[in-house]
């Protein structure tokens, strides 16, 4: 009788034992797949939440008078708008979400306001990013909370600003910052209004937590900017940057511990199941060897069984783990949970690793049993 035939017959005879073995492997793999798949959502959710803390880098002209900068809130010098394109074209930088900005203080309806011109965010050439900030379209404006409240301005109203009429695209929620007294418009509209075509006075950005280094992040950023834009300098809004980086690292460190831990637990689990099966069937090993079967043939019977349980259980576990992640992931990770997708690479790993672990675990008790005299194996059962 062929080895596979014997494996199948044994499985059909010991349905409960085989089923429990299969269940054990499937549960171990499902646990791993669930954690890994949901872990990706957790990573993305943390990135999203920390990103939403806001842009934390300000790139300004190098010759900015810093006393005045801190007094006014922005640089009174300008730099070419083209700088943002040059920065975006550089690969391998820790700058992301590049937002070219032109800010001016001005009087509007008898009140001093900050006029902010922006374009849609630009991504670095080697990165794909979804925008964090809203961008005004040409001829449109967004009003800060305090201005909208004081002057009763609502969406679709029109406002006159430095001789140009803009349609209000919307009003912003209260932020507790200078944003509440700001008017946001498209960069080129603002440049035309203040007659500084082709110029900006700031590039806002986010430092990407994507390159591991032991060096101070700001030191690295300054070094990178010097090579890309020698006429500019960078300031970091430290509390936001630090909080963001610490939170990202915390989650990544947590996942770096928990995932290997789950792998080890699952591997041990598979190992114990395989060992129990071999111990339960030592008598068969003795019989087959007494009948003249070589240790290789007998071992292949047991290792083959471990492989079958591993492959079927691994595939089953992948299906269950993925289904759990797809079902419960979105409940935990409200935004990025929707983006949880089956990770088919894990299916390959599951059907390769589960039988490998089960086989490895079965090797030791099987080899111990087949290398003993058959009489010893039979006597011990």
């Amino acid at each position, binding site marked *: 009788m062929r080895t596979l035939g014997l494996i199948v017959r044994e499985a*059909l005879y010991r349905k409960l034992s085989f089923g429990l073995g299969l269940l054990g492997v499937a549960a171990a793999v499902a646990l791993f797949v669930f954690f890994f798949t949901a872990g990706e959502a957790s990573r993305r959710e943390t990135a999203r939440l920390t990103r939403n803390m806001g842009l934390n880098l300000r790139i300004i002209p190098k010759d900015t008078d810093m006393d005045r900068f801190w007094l006014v809130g922005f640089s009174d010098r300008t730099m070419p708008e083209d700088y943002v394109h040059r920065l975006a074209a550089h690969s391998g930088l820790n700058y992301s979400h590049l937002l070219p900005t032109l800010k001016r203080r001005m009087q509007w309806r008898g009140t001093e306001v900050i006029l902010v011109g922006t374009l849609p965010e630009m991504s670095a050439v080697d990165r794909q990013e979804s925008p964090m900030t809203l961008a005004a379209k040409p001829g449109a404006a967004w009003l800060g909370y305090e201005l909208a409240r004081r002057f009763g301005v609502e969406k679709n109203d029109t406002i006159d600003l430095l001789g140009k009429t803009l349609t209000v695209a919307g009003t912003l929620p209260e932020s507790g910052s200078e944003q509440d007294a700001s008017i946001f418009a498209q960069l080129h509209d603002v440049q035309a209004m203040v007659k500084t075509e082709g110029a900006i006075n700031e590039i806002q950005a986010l430092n990407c937590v994507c390159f591991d280094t032991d060096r101070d992040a700001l030191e690295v950023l300054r070094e990178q900017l010097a090579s890309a834009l020698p006429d500019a300098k960078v300031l970091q809004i430290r509390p936001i940057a630090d909080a963001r980086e610490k939170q990202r690292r915390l989650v990544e460190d947590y996942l770096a511990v928990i995932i290997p831990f789950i792998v080890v637990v699952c591997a041990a689990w598979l190992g114990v199941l395989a060992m129990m099966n071999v111990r339960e069937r030592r008598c068969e090993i003795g019989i087959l*060897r007494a009948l003249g079967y070589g240790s290789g043939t007998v071992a292949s019977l047991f290792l083959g069984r471990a492989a079958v349980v591993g492959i079927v259980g691994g595939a089953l576990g992948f299906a269950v783990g993925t289904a759990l992640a797809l079902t419960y992931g979105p409940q935990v990770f409200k935004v990025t949970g929707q983006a949880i997708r089956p990770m088919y690479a894990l299916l390959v790993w599951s059907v390769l690793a589960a039988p490998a672990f089960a086989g490895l675990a079965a090797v030791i008790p099987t080899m111990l049993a087949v290398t003993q*005299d058959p009489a010893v194996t039979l006597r011990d059962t």
Partner: protein
Amino acid sequence: MVELQQVSKRFRGRAGEVIALAEVDLHVAPGEFVVVRGPSGSGKTTLLLALGGMLRPTGGKVLVNGVDVYALTERERARFRGENIGFVFQMFHLVPYLTVLENVALAATAGRTSTVWAAAGELLGRLGLSPRERHLPSELSAGERQRVAVSRALLNHPKLVLADEPTGNLDPDNAAEVFEGLAVFHRRGGTVVVVTHGTTADHHANRIVHLRDGRIDGGSGEKRMA
């Protein structure tokens, strides 16, 4: 056929060393039916297992058909066992998930499948088990299981059959049937060594060997039968 030369076997246990066999010499001629008898713990089973290449002795030589069994590699010894020796155990040791027919055919480690099935079916028929061919061992009586074990032992046309208390769990009628199966093999020229407490096998035996404290009882220990 079988030659034991100064075979000894010691086991180490928590209570110290136990001598199961003490420099035993035994010769079994081809076509002999030998019964080995002795009290519990006298070393009967150890003698049988050592003789069948199943338990390496601590010292001495075991020759079967002129082959030094323990000079062979593990793989060669397994093949030698399969081709030359049939075993019958007290606890039957049938594979629980295979049918009666499959259990018997399992003994064939090589050979054409159709020939093996036919031979297994014929053996079962000879021992009155044809109607049970498709049954699992758990569906058989103890006597039937042991007859299946005897059929399995005979499938490869071995030269030697070793039986360890083959009727220890059987009633007298079933015991007689099992010994009859072994006797048929013996009458066809096979060599049989049976370890047993009882006397049911005596009338089939050419010789009875008494074992005590791991030694063959000298003088009156061996009894030649007519």
